[in-house]
């Protein structure tokens, strides 16, 4: 029952993607705080990545870590998992390559400092914004996996409010037993729109938060819960800008 629901959602997304709009792009980021075994976060990357990777046409994903002391000894809140400064995309084999990069980074990057979300969100927003220059039908998904409570709440809110005007949705998975009350604030499911420190209000809800312990405690799939709002967020963005599905445009041109 549960799985069939996932598949119908999955099919819906796939249809939107392959038949109507140009390729979407996916990015993943994983917190480096090791309160939860890396294997648990890896499981989250795999489970969710395996569903959303198909919406990326070339299956090459930017993948970052945050809250780690990186290869050159500096503390970073957004570093590339493959260890290189430029060319941050990993993998042509999708999730497997992300997992490989994650595993190798675990050996080279040590835990450091607080859990900051702002930089990762801004980096994803910049990629989404810059893509608009050459393709307005692309939509981006940032998957964030964290076991820590974020310490830059206001900066994160500011980054989310700015990003709400861009083709971007953010999926946050909380793993482990931390108190994730803050995350529920970011996920504006209570109807209250996020507000920035400058009185700007989020254009739309772009965040979906799911604590992963629910996967183990019940029958509800974390993947299902995480992806539930994505089709709506995607369509809201495209419709308010009157961006037509590609094959509808073609049909109109032919007619």
């Amino acid at each position, binding site marked *: 029952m549960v799985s069939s629901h996932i598949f119908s959602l999955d099919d819906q997304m796939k249809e939107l993607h392959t038949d109507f709009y140009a390729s979407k792009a996916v990015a993943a980021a994983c917190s480096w705080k090791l309160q939860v075994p890396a294997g648990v976060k890896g499981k989250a990357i795999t489970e969710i990545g395996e569903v959303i990777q198909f919406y990326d046409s070339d299956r090459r994903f930017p993948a970052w870590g945050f809250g780690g002391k990186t290869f050159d000894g500096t503390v970073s809140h957004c570093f590339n998992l493959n260890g290189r400064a430029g060319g941050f995309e990993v993998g042509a084999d999708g999730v497997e390559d992300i997992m490989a990069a994650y595993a190798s980074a675990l050996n080279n990057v040590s835990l450091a400092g607080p859990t900051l979300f702002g930089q990762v969100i801004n980096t994803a*927003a*910049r990629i*989404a*914004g*810059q893509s*608009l*220059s050459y393709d307005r039908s692309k939509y981006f998904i940032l998957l964030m996996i964290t076991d820590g409570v974020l310490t830059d709440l206001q900066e994160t809110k500011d980054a989310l409010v*700015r990003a709400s*005007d*861009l083709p971007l949705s953010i999926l946050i998975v909380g793993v482990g037993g931390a108190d994730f009350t803050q995350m529920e604030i970011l996920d504006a499911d209570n109807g209250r*729109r996020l*507000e920035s420190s*400058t*009185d*700007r*209000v*989020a*254009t*739309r809800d772009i965040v979906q938060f799911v604590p992963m312990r629910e996967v183990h405690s019940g029958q509800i799939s974390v993947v299902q819960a995480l992806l539930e709002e994505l089709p709506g967020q995607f369509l809201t963005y495209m419709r*308010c*800008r009157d961006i037509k599905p590609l094959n509808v445009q073609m049909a109109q041109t032919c007619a």
Partner: protein
Amino acid sequence: MLEKSSSGYRTIELTVLSGEDLRIDRRLIKKNAFAIVQTDTSFDYCTTKVDESGGSHPSWNEKLVIELPMHARFITVQVQCKSKSSSSGNNNNHNKIVGFARIPVSDFIGGYAPENYLHFLSYRLRNAKGDKNGIINVSVRSLKVAADQHASSSNYLSKAPRLNVQGYVPAYSGFASGFGAPVGGVVTGVPVWCANRA
């Protein structure tokens, strides 16, 4: 070159879309909300029509074409509630202020998105005391950048007709005292669509 561009202006299209949860003294307003748009560089201003049916969630969908000087930093939007007495005569002093929002130019120029991107932006409206009195929703698109000589027109703000009723330019007999700055301001009601879309 730098000097020239700093004295030039850019043309933007600002659509005042709607308001949400508009309140005066914590109470939801019943009707007759309208918005006044101004830049931080000029006393000129422009108003939307009065929404008589939308109550505390008015919908205006009114497109304004604004010639925004390069040195402008903000566009301000003030929402007021038109009073009964001002609808009958010239006494407009009784319009009530719902709240005020400042739209930083940097929210739609110089960010991650390309220059001509259609931005959908929302802001918290506050009254003079700082109370949260609702939300204003707008969309903004930057149309073009021009050098100084074209900015000789004194009109920074001009009004395009509503999108759905072509050629309809609402007349505004009265509004807005209590707005502060614009004493002797010029209201421009020039429909620019005929030049742009013909």
